[in-house]
Structure formats: structure tokens, C-alpha cells
């Protein structure tokens, strides 16, 4: 599982890491107070009656009171008032979540089985990692290339379905410099529970720097490839331990002869690996379904090089 831990702050809730989270938690607290109070309003009389009115003998005479307009009105009206109040308590944070501030920084989110990709206004593409500035509203404009997914950041208390054929939006403002988990919460098939990502909150200057330079540190290509393997969630289909996944394992793949679905065979050299990443369904290994998305146009040449270097290293 490649996602950071969700920091837990209390028995019930994660740490409140966005400006919205505090408002949602206030609503949660009212719901909890309501639940506890009404639970005892029901349970205390229930427990008392259970003991007090336990059958003593066949001669017990039971109450004939079958109706009381007063008490029935009271216990209809009071809960009605309470739930109407809770409706509004629940509504306010939702309204502020629904309307992004005008100056929000916009990031495009693309969901596909089973990975998240984040695209920035300057063209930077960040697979599997949403890097955002601290203390500045960020608006996400989201769409899916295949089925419905849902973007959930527990520490931010935000969740929104990501639907093919339409854009959905949401926004947040991160409070702390930290990393936290993004989870997919709309069932999307085999790799649903592996469809994770990271939100990395950077202080404003560090964020500007990151946006300018991207994430390319001066790592050896194989290590850069390993990082990309994690970010693009390649592992949700391609294991690296020799076991069978939705797709073939990458262990020992380089240099191997693979039999293809059309009966021919191919040696898995650099060119085959490159083609399989860019136009994934061109040559599919026998026994596997042609389900991998094409990455042409989404991935830089240097990144392909790095991934190939990583696969080579997996002997």
C-alpha cells in the first residue's frame, strides 16, 4: 500500500488538516451529542422498565393507558425541531465546501483504473502525488477516463465522485506542512483498494520551487523509475515479486521471451518495454486481458527511460 498514514486525532476522527475539517468536525460533534443524548433518552427508561416491570406473577395487572395526546405530541415535536436544527448544522459546512474561493489554485485530476494523475496549470504532470501549497485554497477539477472513482482525503474531510463524461470539482485549503493519504471510495474493480495517492503539502516557497522544477531530483534512473512505479500505481497490476497480477510480473521481465496473444513471441527488450508503456495494448502477453491504459502523451521520455532502467534492475 503506497500511501502515507492517516493521522488519527481522537477515537473517532483523523486530524483536522484542512480549513473545512474543523467546520465538519463541529457538525460531527453535534451529531454525536444528539446521538448520545437520544441513546440515553431511550435506554434509561428501557432499562428501568425492564427491571421494574419484570413479570411477578400471572396476576399482574398491566396499564391500560393506550394513548396520550400530550406526550405523543411532545415526542414528535421535540425530535422534529432537533433534526431540523441538525439539518442546518450539516448544511453550512457543505455550502462552504461547494463554493471554491475565486483565487483558488486549480489542479486537474484524472482518475483511471487504478491511478490518480494531477496536472498543473504550467503543464507539470504529477502521477500519484498531489503537491499543494500550505494556506492557499486549491480547487480540483476532476474527471475519469473509464468508470466512476471517488477522491477522498480523510484528513481534509472531503470526498467527491469522479465521473466519466463530466467534470466534478471540489476545493480545500491545507493547514499544515505534511503528507497524507488519498483513497478511492467508489468501487472500481480489481485494483480499487490499491488506488491510493499522496497529498504533499509544502510551504508556499517550497511549492513554487517544486512547481518550477518538478519532482526530478538527481537520482539514478533505476531509482527514479522505482519512484515512478509507486506514483503511477503500476504495482496495482504488475507485481515485482514474480506472482501473477492483473498484468504480468515485472520481475525478470527484461530480456525474457514472451508469448503474445496472437501466437507470436517477442523478446522483452527496451523497445518492447517502451511500446508497452506508451501504447499498452499493442502486444499483449498471452493469458492477460488488454486492459492497461495507454500512457502516450502523459509520460515524458525521461520517465520512460527511468521505468525501463527500473525494470532492468528487477532480475
Amino acid at each position: 500500500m503506497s500511501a502515507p498514514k492517516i493521522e488519527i486525532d481522537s477515537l473517532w476522527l483523523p486530524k483536522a488538516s484542512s480549513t473545512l475539517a474543523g467546520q465538519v468536525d463541529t457538525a460531527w460533534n453535534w451529531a454525536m451529542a444528539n446521538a448520545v443524548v437520544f441513546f440515553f433518552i431511550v435506554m434509561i427508561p428501557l432499562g428501568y422498565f425492564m427491571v421494574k416491570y419484570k413479570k411477578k406473577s400471572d396476576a399482574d395487572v398491566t396499564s391500560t393507558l393506550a394513548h396520550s395526546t400530550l406526550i405523543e405530541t411532545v415526542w414528535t415535536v421535540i425530535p422534529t425541531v432537533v433534526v431540523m436544527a441538525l439539518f442546518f448544522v450539516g448544511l453550512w459546512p457543505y455550502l462552504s465546501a461547494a463554493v471554491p474561493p475565486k483565487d483558488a489554485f486549480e489542479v486537474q485530476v484524472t482518475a483511471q483504473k487504478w491511478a490518480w494523475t494531477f496536472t498543473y496549470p504550467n503543464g507539470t504532470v504529477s502521477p500519484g502525488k498531489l503537491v499543494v501549497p500550505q494556506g492557499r485554497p486549491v480547487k480540483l477539477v476532476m474527471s475519469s477516463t473509464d468508470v466512476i472513482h471517488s477522491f477522498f482525503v480523510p484528513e481534509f474531510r472531503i470526498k467527491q465522485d469522479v465521473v466519466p463524461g463530466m467534470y466534478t470539482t471540489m476545493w480545500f485549503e491545507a493547514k499544515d506542512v505534511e503528507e497524507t493519504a488519498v483513497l478511492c471510495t467508489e468501487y472500481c474493480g480489481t485494483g480499487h483498494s490499491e488506488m491510493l495517492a499522496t497529498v504533499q503539502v509544502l510551504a508556499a516557497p517550497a511549492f513554487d520551487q517544486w512547481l518550477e522544477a518538478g519532482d526530478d531530483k538527481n537520482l539514478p534512473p533505476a531509482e527514479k523509475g522505482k519512484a515512478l512505479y509507486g506514483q503511477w500505481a503500476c504495482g496495482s497490476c504488475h507485481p515485482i515479486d514474480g506472482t501473477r497480477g492483473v498484468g504480468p510480473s515485472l520481475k525478470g521481465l527484461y530480456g525474457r521471451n514472451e508469448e503474445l496473444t496472437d501466437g507470436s513471441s517477442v523478446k522483452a527488450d527496451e523497445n518492447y518495454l517502451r511500446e508497452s508503456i506508451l501504447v499498452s495494448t499493442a502486444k499483449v502477453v498471452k493469458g492477460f486481458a488488454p486492459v492497461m491504459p495507454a500512457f502516450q502523451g502523459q509520460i515524458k521520455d525521461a520517465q520512460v527511460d527511468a521505468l525501463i532502467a527500473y525494470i532492468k534492475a528487477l532480475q
Partner: protein
Amino acid sequence: MAQGAITDTTGPAGYGDASSGKNYLNAEKGFLSWVTTVDHKRIGMMYLASVLTAFLLGGLMALVLRLELMKPGKQFLTADQYNQAFTLHGALMVFLFIIPAIPGSLGNFLVPIMVGAKDVAFPKLNLLSIYLYWSGAVFMFASLLIGGIDTGWTFYTPYSSTTSTAVISVTFGAFILGFSSILTGLNFIVTIHKLRAPGITWFKMPLLLWALYATSVVQILATPVLAITLLLLIFERAFSIGIFDPRLGGDPVLFQHFFWFYSHPAVYIMILPGMGIINELIAVHAKRTVFGYKAIAYSSMAIALIGFLVWGHHMFVAGQSELAATIFSFLTFLVAIPSGVKVFNWVSTLWKGSISYTTPMMYAISFLFLFTIGGLTGIFLGMLSVNMHLTDTYFVVAHFHYVMMGGTVIAFIGGLHHWWPKMTGRMYDETVGKIACALVFVGFNATFFVQFILGSRGMPRRYYNYLDQFQPLHAFSTVGSWILGAGLVLVAWNLIRSITKGAIAPANPWGGLSLEWETASPPITENFAETPILKHGPYDYFPAGSKH
């Protein structure tokens, strides 16, 4: 029986002529006599056997799922097998168990007897309904042979219109099951309107009938929408007509509107009969007249009607407009009120009662505890901003299990014990019954209460694998599922054993006042030797000569 309760029927069975030794079970013999019967009691018993089989299979699947979730990563299932197992668990439990369970079994058995009739209004349609049930079940199980289904029981598009698994078989099965449900509902509505015996006015009916009547209205009005939706989905898959799949110009959110337009009212098809049973258990085992009869009866109808207007609360983050979400949230809070009123009425019915702690009463009290938690956690989910955090997490899983299992299933098992002597003519063992109830109660809470915490901490539902930090709570829930499973096995053992070993049941073991207790246990085929005339209401536990 409470002293001085109106007891015109002091004999073993006021209207049940058991002198011949014949009853509905032994009147005819052989397999053919069962599968060609039009006797509502026999059809009820066949439904009972069928829905309990579905419950057993769905329950085994749940135990397998919990075992896989003991630790993150692969234990013994692959991700695809896990996804198929939770889909089948949900589909079996919803379509083959909980929707038909109470109306099909206890409802079929009791409705005609409680209104003092010989049978339901359309006995042959009743037989057709169980044949449709079995046919639907065949299509559902057939999916197992052709590769399973991995969509979740909600069949959301475009996943369901594009996955390679056996979606058509299962959805066609659910389509057929819908007709079975409609026929049962139709029969109950007509039976309750037209076949009530002299003296049984609407407000002299046992409250179970009000609940089943409200349920039937929902079944008849909502189920056709599911049928249309599932047919459209089948057409989408087979002919790519472009209703739901955005690549063909369709709208995937439209499917969710259609689906929940049925499936939210279906939640009330599931819970209302359970609520109806609780009325009977509490009043009879506390020997006290129901407090607020009319409020309970009307609240059933209110739930059934308002229940049609809240489907959008399943879709707060699905991409519907903020205005729609706000309206649906508001209406959702309205539907909470009649449920709350019922709980207050049930607790008040224990006030100055004479409470016998029989197995059925223990289930009724378990219901009050579990359903209250289920209802109050529903308030969290109705609040828009809180819903945004909780929806599609284990909090929702815990919530609906508290309502569906802690509510409906607990009521169903309680009702099964309550009417078991009537249906089989045998008494189950009370001590074993109570121990089993306690195990179910403890196991249920151990399994599902921690799932509220898992969910509010951010654990999504339908996850095969999960973050390491959730492991201890998942393990706790899994151990709870074993206690729950053991309790249910004990329930089954106790009931099945009673058929051969149990004491012979008297006509009226609990001192009930509704009509089913005035015929023999088990009843004769015609239910009553002559048309019964109602001399007292179902809850008239009044001292002799008192004014009320």
C-alpha cells in the same frame, strides 16, 4: 395469561378444530403436495426454507470476507475473488433474503390468519410468486458457474456495463425476483382490504398487518422502477443503447437515480415488516396494550410515503447539484421522525407491563438497542457535510448493518421464535434460545460497532487491501463475526432440533390475543373451523370490567 384479560377463548383453540388430528402440515403428503399447494401456510414455509438457505449462504460469504480482512494484503482470496464474494454477499442478502424474508415467510403464514380468512386473496398468484422467487434465484446462482459478478450489489454504471463478469445473469435474476415481490405485495393489499373477518376494522388489526400493508404499497410502486432500470442495464450491455455509458452518450449518474428510486424505498420494504413484528413481540410478552397504536400505524404509512422522496441521499457526493442534495437532506430528516416515534412507543409499551423474558422478548429488546444505534447513526449520514466525510466508508457499512441486521434480522429471528410453535406445533428450548440470542447480540456488536470507528477514521468500504493502521480494528471485527456466526448456528440448531425433540406446542403458548392464537398449533388447512368473529382487539390486555 394476564389475569382478567378478555379470554373468550379459554379453550385450547377457539376456532381451531384439531380433533381430527389433521393440520396443514400433515393434511397431504409428498413432494408434489408441497410444490403444487396453494395453501398460504405451506407457501410461507417454503419461503421460510428458501430465504433461510439464502441467509446461510450469504452469511458464510460474510464470514469468508471477514476472514480475508483479518490482515491487510492477501490471505487466501485474490482481489477478484474478494470483489465477487462481497458482491454476491450483498446481492444474496438483499434480493434473496431480506426483501422477501418477512413478507414471504411470516407474512404469508400470518396475514390471512390474522384477518380471519382461509387464504390470501389470490392463492395461485401466491404460488406463482414463490416459483418466480426460485427462478430468480437460479439466475443469480447461475452467475457463479459463468464467472461470478464483481460490480457490488448496486450495479453502478459504467462499471457494470463494461465489466466482463456475469452481470446480465444476476440482474435478470433480480428482475424476476421483483415480480415475486410485487405479487406478494398485491396479495397482501387485496387480502387486507377485502378478506377481513367480521369485527376486524382497520384499527383492530394487529400492527404487523399495518406494517405489511405499508410494505406492500412500496413493493408495488417501487419495484417496477427497478425492473425498468435493470432491463435498461441489460440492454446497455447487450446492445450498447447509450443510456448510462458516457462513451455512448449516456449518463452514469442517471443509473444511480433510477437505482436508488427503487432501492431506497426497498430499505423500507426491509425494515417495516421487522418493525411490525416488534409491535407483536413487545405487546404479547409484556401483556400490555400497545401505547400509541394509531401513531405506530400512521408512522408506517408515513415512512412508506416519505421514503419515496429521499433516494438522493445516497448520492450526496455523486455529482448531483447542491440544491438537489440540500432538498434530499432535508427530506431525509423528515423520514427520521416517524421511526423515532415508533421507538418511543415501543419503550412506553413496556411501562407498567408484565415483562416475561422469553426468547422473543429478548430479541425485541435487542432490536430496540440496535435499531436505536442504527437510527441515530443515520442522522450523521443525513447531515450533508458529515456525509461528505463518511459516505462510502465503513461507517455506512456499520450503519446499514445495524438497521438491516440489528433491526430486520433480529426482529425476524425474534418473530420466528414467537410464531415457531404456531407454525410447527413444537416448542423450542427456551434456555438455548436465550443463550443464542445473547451470543448473537454480543457478536453483532463486536463485529459492527468497531466498523463505525473504522469508517469515521477513513477506511473505505469494498476494500480488499487496506492501510496497516486499520488492522487491529479489522481483526476485532473478524473475531466478532465468529461469535455472531456461532450464535446463529445455535439458533438454527435449537429450532431444527425442536421439530423432532421439542415439546408439543399449545394453541396459545404466550397468551396472545390476535386471531392466530385462536386456532390450533399448527393450524388446520382452512385456518379456522368456522369464520371467526372478533370479540376483542389484538392488544386488549385489560382487567375484566375495566373501562378503557
